[in-house]
């Protein structure tokens, strides 16, 4: 997905131009619904003192939640795949708790943990770990038997097989889940901040909404988008470096 090709820039430009013309030169749409580009710049300037700190807070909550959820989810998935005992003990409980929508836990978290950063990080971590846990487990269960048999035949025990065969093999297969998890973590951050944060981008969005400051809301949405896109691009860069051994990227449906 290249952001900079000619066709897409023209398309983008046309949309921006239409937006600017309608909002600046006509009275067709009220600013409260769709503000003009100038309104957006103005609100960016108005919030210039708040935004850096708010961005930093939201970024740290999201990244720590994502990190914890990633590690926790993968560990859980591997643990269940590794030990039948673990699977049989913990599995049914997880089957029961996994489908609970993470957002439905917000009121519960408010009661349990009060207002603060930790419950927000926990919420993000929980949401991400469910995604990564399931993806990891499925990736292990679906891996080609021949690799496991070959490693076993060459003298590796179960732990060694997991470390030297399973984990390297499933890594490219987890990329999709990792990117989805990253995207989801931003959404969970917004929701988490709606539950009584005192600082952060999501919190600022609520304040802007109370003041009917649509331009402010859109500005913050744009900032969130830039953060999420950047994070995704970083993940993809890391992924391409670490998966040089796969045949990814060779598929082209153009010539079929």
């Amino acid at each position: 997905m290249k952001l900079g090709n000619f066709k897409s820039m023209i398309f983008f430009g046309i949309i921006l131009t239409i937006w600017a013309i309608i909002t600046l030169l006509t009275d067709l749409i009220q600013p409260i619904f769709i503000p003009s580009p100038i309104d957006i710049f103005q609100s960016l300037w108005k919030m210039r003192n708040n935004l850096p700190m708010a961005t930093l807070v939201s970024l740290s909550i999201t990244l720590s939640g994502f990190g914890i959820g990633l590690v926790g989810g993968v560990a859980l998935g591997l643990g269940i795949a590794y030990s039948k005992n673990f699977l049989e003990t913990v599995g049914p409980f997880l089957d029961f708790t996994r489908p609970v929508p993470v957002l439905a836990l917000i009121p519960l978290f408010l009661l349990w943990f009060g207002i603060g950063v930790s419950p927000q990080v926990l919420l993000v971590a929980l949401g991400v770990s469910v995604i990564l846990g399931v993806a990891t487990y499925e990736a292990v269960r679906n891996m080609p038997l021949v690799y496991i048999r070959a490693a076993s035949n060459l003298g590796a025990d179960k732990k060694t097989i997991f470390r030297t065969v399973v984990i390297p093999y499933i890594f490219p297969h987890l990329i999709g889940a990792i990117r989805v998890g990253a995207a989801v973590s931003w959404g969970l951050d917004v929701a988490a901040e709606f539950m009584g944060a005192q600082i952060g981008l999501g919190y600022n969005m609520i304040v802007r909404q109370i003041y009917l400051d649509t331009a402010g809301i859109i500005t913050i949405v744009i900032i969130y988008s830039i953060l999420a896109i950047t994070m995704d691009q970083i993940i993809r860069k890391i992924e391409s470096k670490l998966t040089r051994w796969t045949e990814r990227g060779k598929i082209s449906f153009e010539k079929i």
Partner: protein
Amino acid sequence: MGNNIMEIKNLGFAYETDHGKYEVFRNINLNIKNNEFFCVIGPSGCGKTTLLNIIAGFESPTEGAVYKDGVEIKGVSHERAVVFQQDAVFPWLTVYQNVEYGLKVRNIPPKIREEKVKQFLGIVGLAGFEKAYSRELSGGMRKRVDLARALANDPEILLMDEPFGSVDAMTKEKLQIELTEIWESSKKTVIFVTHDLEEALFLGDRIAIMQHIRTNIPLKIIDVQFKRPRKFYLKEDPEFQSLRRNLIEEFRLIES
């Protein structure tokens, strides 16, 4: 030829399906002599791969047992090294790391590992490819890595399950010649499963002819008298061709 390195007594294998017990084979009795190249041929579904899997230790028989040097086989061992039909070379490791794998997991010291890897890469003709990944190699080259990896562990018995089944005809010829030359220098015990009659005749000292269980034809073992070392032009020898025709007759009269 020396004594028997392996004895298979009354071996039978069956598994449960939705429609009841399905017997793959029964009453398999055979002895493998030390340092012989033993082939097993048969049509698809006759159970030859299952037989090899049991000898390797990936499956347990439902009847009878396999004895190596008088001891019943339980589980896998690097002494019974397997070369699989599918691509089993680990794609996330380089050629060097692949061949090194068995030695590394068995804690062989680095200097000795290096010696052995270089030695066996040389034997299979892949010197210079140490740093390559399997996706950069052709099918034939990957098979050679597979072979080097198995041989580097100095197994007592080499188990090969239609190893050349997935390469093209010309590469197959080449690999057969290379295999017999490599075998000449070490004379390891080999159990080689194939459906290719010419391949079995070219490579083997003795051939077991395994028929599908529903034919009720018992296992038949024939001697292959051609002198060693076997040369590539053996396949054009009239005696070779007539032996091949006899083998075909074993299967032709049976409706599949």
